[in-house]
């Protein structure tokens, strides 16, 4: 009789314990199923390379035309940006001004908006 009472019971009880543990585990797993937005999506969403590329292109324009940027080229950039990059782009180049260090540079205003990221910059180039 002690064989049954003291040794047989715990096999069933252990089984029960494991079962209950699994139940709780399942509840926890269910709770934590949702994960947030991943880093990769965040990186893809943020148009870092687009903005850098646009800046380089605008500086190339300034190199070529100075402050009288060719209207056709500006239109190229604005229209193609909207069509292919889905971004509203605007930029303007002002005549050179003297900045510290006695250098004469063009103030270049760049505006970029693709509905998720808005980027505005005035850079002296």
């Amino acid at each position, binding site marked *: 009789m002690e*064989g*049954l009472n003291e*040794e*047989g*019971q715990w*096999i*069933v009880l*252990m*089984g*029960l314990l*494991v*079962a209950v543990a*699994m*139940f709780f*585990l*399942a509840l926890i*797993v*269910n709770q934590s*199923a949702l*994960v947030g937005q*991943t880093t*990769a*999506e965040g*990186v*893809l969403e943020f148009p870092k*390379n*687009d903005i*850098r*590329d*646009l800046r*380089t*292109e605008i500086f*190339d*324009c300034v190199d*070529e*035309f100075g402050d009288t940027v*060719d209207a*056709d*080229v500006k*239109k*190229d*950039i604005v*229209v*193609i940006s909207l*069509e*292919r*990059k889905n971004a509203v782009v605007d930029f303007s180049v002002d005549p050179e001004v003297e900045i510290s260090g006695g250098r004469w540079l063009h103030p270049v205003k760049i505006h970029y908006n693709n509905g998720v990221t808005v980027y505005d910059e005035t850079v002296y180039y």
Partner: protein
Amino acid sequence: MVNDTGQLYTMEGVAAGLIMLLTAYIVISTTSVYTPGDTHITDMQLEQLGSDVLAMMDTPDTETGVSDLEVFVDHNNATGFEATFLDYCNATTGGAVDSLHMSATIYYQDGDEVKEYLFVPADDSWTGRESAVRATRWVQLDERSRGPPLDDRARAVLVEVLIWRD
């Protein structure tokens, strides 16, 4: 008497086992955690690589030089573009060569319309069902007698490259 107890031990084992298996079955059948495979990671890596390659092709090697990219586009040198692009993006530090493929299209503006022409066509590995990414780069072309489709005026064109892994 002795036999009875013996059987009970076995039955208890079976009972405990059944309870656990049943619970495991219920638990597993009800918790269906299935996160869609994060394909965006490979997309992100490829996109970064593609942008890097185009940016580096657009960087002249010397201060007064003209970038490779500009020369290729300006002189419609598709084979040179393709070779350089694939060289750059398939290079690894270990010396092994990666298996990336590409096609490229150039977008330009013509009378209020954005038009395109295929610069580098896709090779045979393209079936239309690849997980591809796109990298783009602006190219500023000087005024020069160039011939169609890009006419002589100075213009900004957009080079778009589609990259996929074999």
